[in-house]
């Protein structure tokens, strides 16, 4: 069951991700991106990280993508116009992409430890595994307010500065 769900949503995620690039209209791309975010949330859920999954949906699929779509709707952006591609792109594009993906796969295989693997539902599952309870709201909250307190607070300050900056820039335009 887990494997079937994983395969279904992994395929949806990959197809939607390709669709983001292939689609010519920005709204279609944005909707595909929501699909990617949603299926990623399901993958987190399969691992047992329920809080992370909910946060993924609320923050990315919900808040961020709503803003994307909102802006696209407001700007009334039309479909992208396809220009004729140069011969170099047509010839070398696909081989170069395959070569790049192969390189990435090679380095992932080489650099990441082999013995460690994560199983379905491990973050909440029974037993006293090191990752047990890692995905719960309590664990994430504790980590945020103890181990990662400084980065957490600094990030919030950074976001505040970014918001103020956005308002200042937008105001200038209004005057």
């Amino acid at each position: 069951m887990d494997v079937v769900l994983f395969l279904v949503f992994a395929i949806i995620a990959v197809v939607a991700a390709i669709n983001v690039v292939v689609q010519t209209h920005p709204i279609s791309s944005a909707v595909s991106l929501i699909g990617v975010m949603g299926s990623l949330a399901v993958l987190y859920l399969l691992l047992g990280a329920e809080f992370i999954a909910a946060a993924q949906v609320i923050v990315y699929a919900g808040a961020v993508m709503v803003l994307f779509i909102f802006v696209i709707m407001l700007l009334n952006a039309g479909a992208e116009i396809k220009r004729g591609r140069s011969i170099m792109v047509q010839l070398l594009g696909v081989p170069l992409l395959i070569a790049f993906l192969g390189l990435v796969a090679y380095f992932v295989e080489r650099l990441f430890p082999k013995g460690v693997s994560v199983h379905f539902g491990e973050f909440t599952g029974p037993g006293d595994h090191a990752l047990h309870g890692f995905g719960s709201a309590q664990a994430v909250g504790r980590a945020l307010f103890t181990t990662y307190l400084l980065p957490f607070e600094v990030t919030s300050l950074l976001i505040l500065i970014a918001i103020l900056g956005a308002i200042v820039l937008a105001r200038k335009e209004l005057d």
Partner: protein
Amino acid sequence: MDLFIIITLIKLVIIAFVLLTAVAYLQWVERKVIAHIQVRPGPYRVGPHGLLQPLADVIKLITKEDLLPPYVNKPLYLFAPFIAVAMALLSIAVIPFGPIVRVDGYETYMQLTDLNIGVLFILAVSSMGVYGVALAGWASNNKYALLGGLRSSAQMISYELPLALAVASPLLVSNTLSLRDLEFAQKGGIWHWNILHGGQIIAFLIFLIAAFAETNRVPFDLPEAENELVAGFHVEYSSMKFASFFMAEYLNMVTVSAMATLLFLGGWDAPWPAEYGSNLGALLLNAAVPTVIFVIAGLTALYHGAHPAHKLDRYTLTAFGVIFLVLAAVFLVPIVQGWLLPLFWFCAKTGMILFAFIWIRGTLPRFRYDQLMGFAWKFLFPVAMLNLLVTSLVVAWVS
């Protein structure tokens, strides 16, 4: 087949059936209540007192021509009503309606599934519900629909913040994210409910106001303000696609009311500490409120049946009177009390909030758009923030 899967399927069918019927009749109740507020009879022709009106509406909506306007973005146009209904239905999955039920030695909760992040799940699903409206508005390729969709997405994003902050404070008091545990934390009568116990009455009011905006109800129904936008985001939709937006709206109303019940009003508990024992005094006390209500309803119906305003009323109202009296008697049976009473209290509380939704629709005029946004950002959000701050300080002080 696993017994668990069978029981879950049975629960699924029951919940879906009851919910969809309730949504259909919620619309009947809404039309009736608003009609009576405006001193007119409301639906009256189809069935006794218009009781079959929802059925007639459904048949009408299904058999109408399903128009696909030209120049719409076809995939998104078809996808939008689907996502609106799907997201509205999805959130009911984690809402518990009652305590554990024992059927032939097998125990099950009156709930489809209990996530330990139930509250976050509902917030997440409701934040996805925005897309139904926003995409419908955009894909229709119509300026009124687009404006409606834009208004709705802006409104929903803005009101999601005070809503989430208002939800957070009872969570702090009860110290859990699971809706079932939330109910257990409020056991022991009205003084232990979050609305009084944690002093969360401000959070409750903020939640209700934000919920009105989230479900696009009067006084915040700007996405479909008829006199400026024709019908707003669903102006190009017809037949069942149009109906699905309505269904989503009413489903969201039910979900939000159930959420308010669970978060603030003690879920399925009676307002006094109730023990479902075989003791006769406890039995009568527990059943007192529902029995009295149904007896009064039954006697009223019987009286009006005896003095009918219409010919048919003589039979229909008498039948309803007898049904109500039988229901009143059922509440006194000790075996069913254990699950019927919690269900009654849950439905009563949720129903009261739903009635408030309808009441306010019959009472208040619509906000202007800038007032709506100003109210969210300049008043509701700071108040919710302050309430959360005070609550967390108090919780930290007490523990």
